[in-house]
């Protein structure tokens, strides 16, 4: 029995190492898009398609090789209500805090999103954009983090940290995405439903841009774009 146990341990270690490398690889693509393409490659409009295409292509291939179904990764409807129930209370609490901040700073305006200052000015695109982010963050990074550390606090903290890192150097967005990342990663581990998370993500983004002073958000810019 002992040699088999050793073999099992080795397989598990290799699997964890591969999963960690997968996370690093997708994060690298995102950081290349945010920092390299927007700084030295923005003259070529197709340059952004390379890291984005590589990241999504890789994630799809990884799902196939690990035999993960769409249902397993959270593209499903049966647990939508369960996920929504877990989300609603923390979302309401966060929204109340943000509305109080908006009221106190005089920047409360729930129609600001119509100003089309960013892609989030259009609700449909806002949900689509949130869906893409939540897919990468939860259906991929969260699942691989669970392979490395198992479900629980460590993997949830890791996912939230990765989400925050992708919003550097915007200080406000880095903070709020870490907080949001904690909630969404924890909810995903209990009720994996990407659609519920995407709706929550776009809704909270709308509340954030409607309440927080515009200057502190810097048009939701992240990466190299933050500087100009």
């Amino acid at each position, binding site marked *: 029995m002992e040699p088999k146990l050793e073999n099992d341990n080795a*397989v598990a270690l*290799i*699997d964890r190492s*591969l999963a960690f*490398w*997968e996370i690093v*690889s997708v994060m*690298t*693509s995102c950081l*290349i898009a945010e920092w*390299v*393409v927007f700084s*030295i*490659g*923005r*003259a*070529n409009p197709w*340059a952004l398609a*390379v*890291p984005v295409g*590589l990241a999504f292509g*890789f994630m799809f*291939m*990884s799902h196939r*090789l*690990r*035999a993960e179904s769409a249902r397993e990764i959270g593209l499903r409807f049966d647990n939508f209500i369960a996920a929504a129930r877990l989300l609603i209370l923390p979302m309401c609490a966060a929204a109340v805090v943000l509305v109080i901040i908006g009221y106190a700073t005089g920047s409360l305006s729930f129609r600001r999103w119509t100003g089309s200052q960013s892609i989030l000015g259009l609700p449909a695109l806002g949900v689509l954009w949130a869906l893409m982010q939540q897919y990468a963050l939860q259906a991929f990074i969260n699942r691989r983090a669970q392979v490395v550390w198992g479900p629980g606090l460590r993997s949830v903290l890791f996912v939230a940290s990765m989400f925050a890192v992708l919003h550097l150097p915007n200080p406000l967005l880095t903070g709020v995405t870490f907080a949001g990342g904690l909630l969404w990663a924890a909810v995903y581990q209990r009720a994996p439903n990407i659609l519920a998370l995407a709706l929550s993500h776009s809704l909270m983004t709308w509340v954030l841009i409607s309440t927080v002073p515009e200057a502190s958000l810097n048009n939701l810019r992240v990466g190299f774009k933050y500087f100009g």
Partner: protein
Amino acid sequence: MDINGLKLFRILVAKSIIEVFFVGALAVGFVLSTFPPYFHGWGEATPQGIEGWVVNYWAPWDRVEVQLFIDGHFTATGMANLSRPDVVAAGWAKDQWHGYAFVLPKLPPGNHEARVYAIHESANGNRQSLQLVGNPIRFAVDQNGKLTIWTIHLLVRTN
């Protein structure tokens, strides 16, 4: 490692290699478009000021915009479009209209250094870069505010 693990490993390696080449290509493209190696020229101190010429070999009929910095501070900007038949005669340019001349502002007595830069626009005009034309030009100004040292550049092609 099972067969799918091995495939995943290979895909990760391939993706990493593609990204390295992609970032490398972007970096090379950025350097070539921002600091293109086709500006050539020369400058010298004369009793009148700083004079010289600059040619853009990529567009030899274009006039190049130049900026003068003295002791590291921006001093003046101008277009290199003055007549320099000696530059054509030496084989450096296809036409004579590549000269520039800057009259120096009042400078304190002592040693100074002038640098002339060619301005280059890239990224659809969103980015401007400065490239040093020739070597830094060292000169001195006397108590009366006149240039006391200047060098005479011989137009001898060396390459």
